[in-house]
């Protein structure tokens, strides 16, 4: 089971070094020639991109790396080489997904989580099946991190295309760490600090022949650990946990690559080193590090969801994969259905039988589920529908982020088909909102949408460990016999009883998509239709009285505001300029 996102098409091993190695451990790579531009070139850096904890003494911290090398003072004693305290850094790894940059980035994120830091990641999914250019960005902060950052302070470029595509996302004064075996930067561009390291060559050298350049990601992790003065012991522990259960040689190879990167005398080419300021957390709870889709899946489990069905589609698939793997542990089932129409229908079958169920998809699949969701409104069945949004319309931009399905969620059904729509604001919120969705679905016997999106689905954040003992919901249905039962009482919120429940007066209920009377039997009466339509709407009015007013992030700008019986909870922080897209 992998807890960290792994690049598509590359199995669970991620970008881990896999090949056997012949190098003896402790091999330290040779110090190469510094692939640094001329002192003049680099010395022009003006503003440090990394945000210092306190304003650095004039000039000193911003001196160009190469310039300071002319001195003969031992590095350890030089004031400008002492790690500078920072509170926030955006590190972007740009390479190909098969290089395992996601794995390396996820290690950084987990380390941040274990070190009381806040973290948010952002990744792109390569558009080609077999991998291809992609990025993994990690923002680590000593305070609250509210976005993954538009621009990077520190860019690692593995290839020429990585450099070309991403250099414009590097802040002025930012550091470009590039693989000098593959990248030739334009040193005439004086905005950045250039740090060239022959990453490919040194990785091969450190690991021996067969591994080729696999392990570059871990080598770079070593370099970054040095530059940012990361807690090496913690990081090594995280790495070995990740590969635990695999061949010991894999762990050894990873450690070798890490050690080689860490031991590289990067101080010769980058005079600066940094250290994240440590602001101890006050909550006293450990931090959990996971991505939004994982948080959603585990939130559903905590909320008592034991059954579900779905059909694969990016970026929803990882939720269903997690549920398919996890639910049997809890005695439940997740079914991969033949299509989305079947999956929503299966989920309704589960819910009807007494186990609130989940289905989900992205835009194209949600469109297919629409008719059955209308049935859930009409027959008043609790159901959770996750829409992990992507670019639309139609097949749209399958691997890109867009939040354009709000209207579909609220109004995407024929007739008056009230439903509840919730939107997760953060990875942590994905967890809690799933529990909330389950609670609302049960209490109001209604379909509940959870909106997420590509970015939230794949980004990693650290958050305080939830108190599961207080949150876990026990999903046992109540089959105790009833004297009499009406599925659709006009004056009360519908609460279905599962089949298998004896009804002693012998009159059994029917769940119907036709307009119906209190027993669920069809009616064509316009008067009854009005009464029942009001009944279905009124329960959401009740809900509106109970839920808190949405928190608003950022500036108050909106072209349309939606006021309707539909409860619209929490808006995503998309208007505060934090979108990773420009």
């Amino acid at each position, binding site marked *: 089971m992998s807890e960290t996102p792994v690049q598509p098409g590359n199995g669970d091993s991620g970008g881990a070094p896999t090949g056997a190695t012949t190098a003896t451990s402790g091999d330290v790579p040779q110090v190469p020639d510094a692939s640094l531009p001329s002192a003049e070139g680099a010395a022009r850096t003006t503003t440090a991109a990394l945000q210092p904890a306190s304003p650095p003494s004039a000039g000193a911290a911003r001196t160009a790396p190469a310039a300071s090398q002319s001195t003969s003072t031992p590095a350890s004693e030089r004031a400008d080489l002492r790690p500078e305290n920072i509170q926030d850094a955006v590190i972007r790894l740009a390479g190909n997904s098969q290089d395992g940059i996601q794995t390396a980035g996820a290690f950084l994120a987990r380390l941040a989580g274990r070190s009381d830091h806040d973290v948010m990641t952002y990744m792109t999914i390569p558009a080609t099946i077999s991998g291809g250019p992609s990025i993994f960005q990690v923002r680590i902060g000593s305070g609250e991190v509210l976005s993954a950052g538009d621009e990077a302070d520190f860019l690692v470029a593995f290839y020429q295309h990585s450099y070309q595509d991403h250099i414009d996302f590097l802040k002025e004064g930012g550091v470009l760490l590039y693989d000098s075996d593959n990248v030739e930067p334009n040193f005439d561009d004086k905005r950045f600090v250039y740090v060239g390291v022959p990453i490919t060559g040194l990785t091969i050298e450190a690991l021996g022949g067969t591994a080729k350049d696999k392990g570059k990601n871990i080598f770079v992790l070593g370099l970054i650990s040095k530059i940012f003065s990361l807690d090496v012991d913690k990081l090594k522990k995280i790495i070995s946990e990740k590969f635990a259960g695999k061949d010991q040689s894999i762990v050894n190879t990873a450690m070798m690559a890490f050690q080689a990167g860490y031991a590289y005398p990067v101080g010769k080419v980058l005079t600066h080193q940094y250290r994240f300021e440590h602001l101890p957390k006050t909550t006293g709870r450990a931090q959990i590090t996971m991505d939004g889709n994982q948080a959603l899946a*585990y939130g559903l489990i905590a909320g008592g969801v034991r059954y579900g069905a779905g059909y694969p589609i990016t970026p929803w698939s990882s939720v269903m994969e997690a549920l398919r793997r*996890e639910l049997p542990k809890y005695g439940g*089932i997740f079914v991969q259905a*033949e299509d989305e129409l079947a999956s929503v*229908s299966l989920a309704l079958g589960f819910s009807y039988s007494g186990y609130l169920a989940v289905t989900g998809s992205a835009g194209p699949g949600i469109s297919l589920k629409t008719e059955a969701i209308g049935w859930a409104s009409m027959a008043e069945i609790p159901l959770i529908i996750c829409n992990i949004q992507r670019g639309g319309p139609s097949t749209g931009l399958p691997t890109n982020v867009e939040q354009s399905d709000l209207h579909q969620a609220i109004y995407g059904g024929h007739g008056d088909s009230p439903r509840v729509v919730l939107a997760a604001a953060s990875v942590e919120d994905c967890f809690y909102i799933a529990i909330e969705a389950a609670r609302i679905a049960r209490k109001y016997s209604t379909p509940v949408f959870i909106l997420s999106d590509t970015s939230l689905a794949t980004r990693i954040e650290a958050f305080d460990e939830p108190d599961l003992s207080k949150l*876990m919901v026990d999903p046992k249905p109540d089959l105790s*016999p009833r004297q009499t039962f009406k599925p659709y009482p006009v004056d009360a919120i519908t609460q279905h009883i599962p089949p298998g429940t004896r009804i002693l007066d012998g009159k059994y209920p029917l769940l119907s998509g036709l307009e119906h009377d209190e027993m669920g039997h069809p009616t064509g009466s316009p008067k009854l239709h009005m009464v029942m339509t009001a009944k279905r709407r009124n329960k959401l009015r009740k809900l509106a009285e109970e839920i808190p007013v949405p928190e608003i992030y950022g500036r108050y700008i909106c072209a349309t505001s939606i006021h309707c019986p539909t409860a619209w909870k929490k808006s995503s922080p998309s208007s505060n300029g934090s979108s990773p897209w420009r």
Partner: protein
Amino acid sequence: MPETTTSAPPAPEREKLTKKAITADHPTWCPGCGDFAVLASFYKVLEKKQLDHEKIVTLAGIGCSSRFPYFVNGHGAHFIHGRAVPLASGISLARPDLHVFLFGGDGDGFSIGGNHLNHGARKNINMTYFIMDNFVYGLTKKQTSPTSPIGFKSKTDPTGAIDQPVNPMKQLISAGATFIARTHATQVKHMMEMIERAFDHQGFSVIECLSECVEFYPDVFDPADPRKGGSFDVIQEKKWDNTPEDELRHDVTDELAAYKLAQLPFPGVFGVFYQNDRPTKNALEKKWIESTREKTGNASDLEILQKTFDRMK
């Protein structure tokens, strides 16, 4: 499966399950519609089987035939057009204690729900599915259905249907259904026998029943009704008695033989075409749950999730 609670007030002794107890609304079907006979046979089978009333679940999609659940007093749901197989699958998988009966028409089952039929069959999900095939769309008033024969004049084919119809038996055999039978609404005894055998079978059991739409396609099934001068040819199943006659009888486990029977020209033959004991999805999922639960040391839900979170720290 997660456990269900059955505590609460002690329920009184059960009375016998009678036709009266399971009868609900009077059917809205046209007088003479074949579906009445199906309903009557179903009541009789339930009475004979004396199932626990609360465990009977009737489900349907949309169509005249799909109105069925309204006429049975029991737990049930009237779903949307064509999707009742996956709805029933959810109920069947989550609640092995229930008897899941599904009813529908030819349009519901072979057209809009055709793919669900295939996958329900392939996965062998435990349920009893009764398809009332009238070769026409009844509820929407005489359009061509997927089983309408070539030449049938409907509102959507005024000069006669031109598309090759579905052969239900062939489709079900190739899709992997594990109990496949064919019957006729005028042959009540045979129909009841088929319902009973389908019910007793563990797996995806389907009965195609020729059920006349007197309103929009009258008399089409007369060739299989002896009272109307037709002949109702019943499949002779092997008795495995080593007699020479037995050589000629049908082996219901023989897929190719079943397929050959399905090739016979209309009205063809009636009875069990195919039956096989392949494990159900219900059983396979249960097995997987059990081995997974064992690996967790049968830990509590809280313990399992906590352990997962501990790994994510």
